[in-house]
């Protein structure tokens, strides 16, 4: 190419004219901590930040030190720094022997699912180059799943949100402009101040997805004065928790001691792929099996990887787990294989009452309902009882996420009491430590806000909030649409409700309606389907850039404390709530600011972690110890048979014993007499494992339970508030079971839709991670070959699925009635969706399975399987169209769907799948409010 002298001369001339405007160094670099540079007066950004003037001119000595290799004159050579991410380029240089030279190892905690495994990050030149499990973590023991390995995709994703954004144009139109943090916080503060001054602080709702910064959120909301904190617990584990609480009161989380078990009876849990305890639990299950000889039997509608790895797998009809469990109980009792001593001593019913309860639930009855052979039900019941007390059930969303899920889980858990494995080594255990070791205490917290909101505590669901604040997340948008609540301000946090909530279209409708949600601030690391409907988007840090103390209920049955710490500086202007909530509180004022006296986040963390004891080997304690090791575990004895723990003389001082042997002190239960000696017992009103729960029956009827609560000694348990009056729900005090009526008369083309998670994804946040999306990116519907044959369908055929609203809920929950759902075939139609099918034996013939995690419409190019963003014809955002330098982003997105919606052009295993929540109706269990994800009746039509 010949140089165009006149053109060049023009540039040089213009440059001479322009040059005068640029005194000093770089001009116009935006930084939230700095004032913008000004024309004519602009010094370097660093100088303006008050960092002091840097020496002017070029540092030729520095240049001479670096100019040799790896820079190669005149061509794009290798640059200094850390190893590239794995990918085609890195593979060419593999193995890179210098990769871990001069790295710093920093402990942290994963947050790509809810399990929060301990991790170690390798940081070099200010960049995170690898993440692996922290072997010191007592729960995860150094293991890390595929999601955790994809941390680098998450942290360095090219489409991360880096700056605060403000909507321009209509909400949901997708037009934005960047604003400063100052502008953002000022605007948010002004709005929140107005909400506060309106006298209705409850009309500010905070809606969280996965969160592990409980203290920071609670501090802000309590300081503000709203208790409208919405969560997704009812979309996850509400029934399992309620069932556990009904027996135990002190814990909502069973910790099955599978590592020491001989028999593990799994009802619908996919622990090897997606359990809340995922890796720690799966690791212990396999240890139990291969080191302790345990047998694993799984009941699941679908052949999950857990089911496939089990010793036996049975596919019951959807939602009939409880029937199978009751039938097992029938066998155990009728064959006198029960633990009479435990039942007589430690439960509040007699053997005869139990026999009466179980009388109708025969194995033959269960076979007719579930399809599981009666002979197998009896055999497994005998095996389970024979292995006791080292035998445990386990269950999760497979049994819980049903309209009858509360009763499913009640029936399953009761098996452990029948065989006496409750609290036993190798049995069905729990711990009172649901998270952090209580030895660590946050700096003083504000008093809890005392507002009420129908969104946070809907009166129709009696067990949602009486023991724990589980809430009923799936009704939030419907109640707003019905006008039952109003929101002046709505702050979403790590939430992707249009994808993860039932009824995508309703969620979108409400989020987009400014008359229903007046002001929406979205805090997230990525733009997604929720951010799309925000007014202000705040760029959040990833879990690799922020502070937390964190822990889960540990399978070691003792508490621990883990540390999440910034491994690198946050990218761009991303900030964590710990960092900007204090600033926002100060702007809102009105006393909020006094709850943020700390200098900075590190100061707060130091106070919080102060009680972590010294490691005698290093001499470090508190935060310093955690920064060193990442985790500290107490030396408490595992929480086996806590009900046998003796009460001390000090405990007994001033106590009295009632006629039932319950020990009361100041009117509150503290234990029970056992063979003349005071022991702790269970923390229930009877101080026993409560098979008969007067509490749930009375609370359902809105009756006063103060005496029961006092006897339990669990002051966190509450009566239902006055606002719940008139909303009675009949709850059986004894375990029971029913079949939802919509399942009683399925037509030939009607199936039950079930959903599931993959081992490489969480529900709504991982499809943007390249390494994971390469493994799973789509979700055609699973259909049994027999069913497919009956319907004239084959592999890869496209079908139209139509979903229907629950008849059972029409009967039980009239407040959910929807005039917009038209009646069709005797059912109320919810939505239709067109999907391809895959046929496989691993699904019940009357079920259809679609995974979640798929079908994103606004969540990064990878999540949408788009190499061709709408406005950039040709290639994926950020890829090199000429050299295809990053083949992973470009040519390797082999799953891109180029059919443009034409089914005849669609190629199997391409595209980003479909959001199954388009079909699933809002369907809370009438007792606890848990969303019934696995009950949807659908009809199927070949296209």
């Amino acid at each position: 190419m010949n140089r165009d002298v006149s053109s060049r001369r023009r540039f040089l001339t213009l440059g001479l004219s322009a040059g005068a405007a640029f005194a000093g160094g770089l001009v116009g670099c935006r930084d939230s901590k700095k004032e913008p540079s000004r024309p004519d007066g602009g010094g370097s950004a660093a100088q303006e930040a008050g960092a002091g003037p840097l020496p002017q001119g070029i540092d030729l000595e520095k240049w001479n030190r670096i100019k040799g290799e790896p820079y190669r004159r005149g061509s794009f050579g290798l640059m200094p720094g850390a190893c590239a991410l794995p990918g085609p380029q890195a593979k060419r240089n593999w193995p890179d022997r210098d990769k871990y030279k001069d790295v710093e190892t920093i402990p942290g905690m994963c947050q790509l699912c809810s399990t929060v495994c301990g991790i170690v990050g390798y940081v070099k030149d200010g960049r995170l180059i690898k993440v692996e499990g922290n072997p010191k973590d007592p729960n995860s023991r150094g293991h890390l799943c595929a999601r955790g390995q994809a941390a680098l995709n998450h942290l360095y994703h090219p489409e991360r949100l880096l700056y605060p954004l403000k909507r321009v144009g209509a909400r949901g139109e997708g037009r934005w402009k960047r604003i400063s943090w100052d502008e953002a916080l000022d605007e948010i503060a002004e709005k929140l101040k107005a909400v506060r001054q309106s006298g209705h602080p409850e009309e500010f709702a905070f809606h969280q997805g996965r969160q592990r910064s409980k203290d920071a959120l609670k501090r802000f909301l309590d300081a503000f004065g709203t208790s409208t904190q919405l969560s997704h617990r009812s979309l996850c584990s509400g029934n399992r928790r309620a069932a556990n609480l009904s027996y135990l009161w002190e814990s909502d989380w069973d910790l099955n001691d599978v590592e020491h078990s001989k028999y593990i009876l799994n009802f619908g849990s996919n622990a090897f792929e997606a359990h809340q305890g995922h890796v720690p639990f799966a690791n212990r299950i396999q240890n139990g099996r291969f080191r302790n000889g345990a047998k694993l039997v799984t009941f699941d509608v679908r052949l999950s990887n857990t089911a496939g790895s089990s010793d036996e797998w049975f596919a019951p009809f959807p939602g009939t787990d409880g029937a199978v469990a009751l039938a097992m109980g029938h066998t155990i009792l009728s064959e006198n294989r029960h633990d009479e001593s435990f039942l007589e001593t430690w439960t509040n019913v007699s053997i005869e009452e139990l026999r009466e309860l179980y009388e109708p639930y025969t194995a033959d009855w269960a076979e007719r309902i579930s399809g599981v052979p009666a002979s197998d039900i009896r055999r497994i019941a005998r095996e389970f009882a024979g292995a006791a007390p080292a035998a445990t059930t386990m269950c999760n969303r497979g049994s819980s996420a049903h309209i009858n899920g509360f009763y499913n889980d009640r029936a399953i858990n009761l098996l452990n009491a029948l065989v006496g494995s409750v609290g036993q080594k190798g049995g069905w255990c729990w711990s009172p430590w649901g998270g952090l070791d209580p030895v660590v205490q946050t700096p003083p917290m504000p008093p809890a806000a005392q507002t009420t909101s129908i969104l946070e505590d809907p009166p129709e669901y009696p067990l949602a909030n009486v023991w724990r604040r589980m809430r009923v997340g799936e009704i939030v948008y419907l109640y707003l649409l019905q006008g039952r609540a109003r929101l002046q301000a709505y702050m979403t946090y790590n939430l992707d409700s249009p994808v993860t909530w039932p009824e995508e279209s309703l969620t979108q409708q409400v989020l987009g309606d400014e008359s229903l949600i007046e002001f929406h601030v979205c805090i997230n690391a990525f733009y997604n389907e929720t951010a799309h409907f925000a007014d202000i988007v705040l760029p959040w840090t990833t879990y690799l850039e922020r502070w937390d103390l964190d822990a889960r209920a540990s399978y070691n049955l003792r508490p621990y404390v883990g540390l999440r710490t910034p491994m690198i500086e946050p990218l761009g202007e991303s900030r964590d709530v710990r960092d900007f909530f204090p600033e926002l509180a100060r702007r809102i004022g009105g006393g909020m600011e006094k709850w943020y006296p700390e200098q900075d986040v590190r100061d707060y963390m130091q106070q919080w972690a102060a009680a972590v004891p010294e490691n005698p080997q290093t001499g470090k304690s508190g935060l310093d110890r955690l920064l060193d090791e990442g985790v500290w575990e107490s030396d408490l004895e595992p929480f086996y048979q806590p009900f046998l723990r003796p009460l001390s003389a000090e405990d007994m001082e001033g106590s009295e014993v009632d006629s039932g042997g319950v020990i009361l002190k100041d009117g509150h239960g503290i234990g029970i007499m056992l063979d003349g000696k005071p022991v702790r017992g269970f923390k229930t009103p009877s101080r026993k494992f409560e098979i008969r729960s007067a509490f749930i029956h009375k609370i359902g009827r809105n009756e006063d339970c103060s005496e029961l609560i006092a006897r339990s000694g669990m002051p966190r348990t509450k009566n239902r508030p006055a606002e719940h009056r008139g909303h009675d729900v009949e709850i059986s005090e004894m375990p029971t079971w029913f079949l939802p009526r919509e399942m009683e008369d399925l037509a030939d083309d009607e199936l039950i839709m079930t959903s599931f998670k993959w081992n490489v994804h969480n529900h709504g946040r991982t499809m943007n991670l390249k390494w994971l999306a390469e493994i799973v990116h789509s979700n055609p519907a699973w259909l049994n070959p027999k069913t497919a044959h009956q319907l004239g369908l084959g592999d890869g055929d496209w079908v139209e699925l139509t979903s229907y609203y629950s008849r059972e809920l029409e009967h039980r929950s009239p407040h959910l009635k929807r005039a917009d759902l038209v009646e069709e075939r005797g059912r109320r139609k919810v939505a239709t969706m067109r999907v391809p099918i895959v046929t496989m034996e691993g699904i019940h013939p009357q079920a259809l399975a679609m995974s979640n995690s798929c079908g994103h419409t606004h969540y990064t190019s990878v999540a949408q399987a788009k190499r061709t963003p709408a406005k950039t014809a040709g290639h994926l955002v950020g890829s090199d169209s000429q050299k295809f330098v990053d083949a992973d982003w470009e040519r390797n997105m082999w799953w891109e769907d180029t059919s443009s919606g034409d089914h005849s052009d669609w190629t199997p295993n391409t595209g980003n799948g479909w959001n199954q929540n388009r079909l699933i109706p809002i369907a809370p269990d009438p007792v606890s409010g848990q969303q019934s994800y696995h009950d949807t009746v659908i009809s199927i039509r070949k296209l």
Partner: protein
Amino acid sequence: MTGHHDSPAGDAEDLEGLAGFYRLLSRLWVSELDAEWLETLVDGSLADVAEELEFPLDGPREEVLEQLAIEYCGLVIGPKNHVPPHQSVWVEGQLHGQTVVSMQQFLEVVREEVDATMSDHLGVQLGVMGIIVESLAESLAIAETGTEKGGDVTELTELARVFFATHVMWITRFLARAGAATDSKFYLRLIAVTSEFLAEEHEVWGVD
């Protein structure tokens, strides 16, 4: 030492002009225009330059400012369908790649400090090139007067070449994509000007 000192980019005055143009482009790319800069371009010291470059900035000042902010956001910030302005994305498929480590080294050479995420932003890179060229211009001017700075000219020329090859050349690929991604008149014009300028520079610094 006396004698002829030159650089592939021309004499000292040429280089001064070149540095000025780099810095102008740097400012226009590194962030949205603020009110003061818009004023400078429309009615201030750079009005003639802006007019010569045919930057469409007509209209009520507030509206233009708002519109440019929206267009800048849509083009390079996002949150969706944007064209990332960070070199790491283009050569490594991610933010904050080893490109950033390299840029931090060059920023130390030119004695500048920039937030790490911004360090491989094309606006910063054009600015660093401007600083290098400006230093080269100063050294050349001194050398032409016969002082001892001749050695610096050689070093600085090499520095400019390497920096251009390593951290500026990629921008032409960004511009090709950006041109297809926006319908903003201002940014389409800025893309055209930058493309034309870098094509010239490509020749000057002898990069393959």
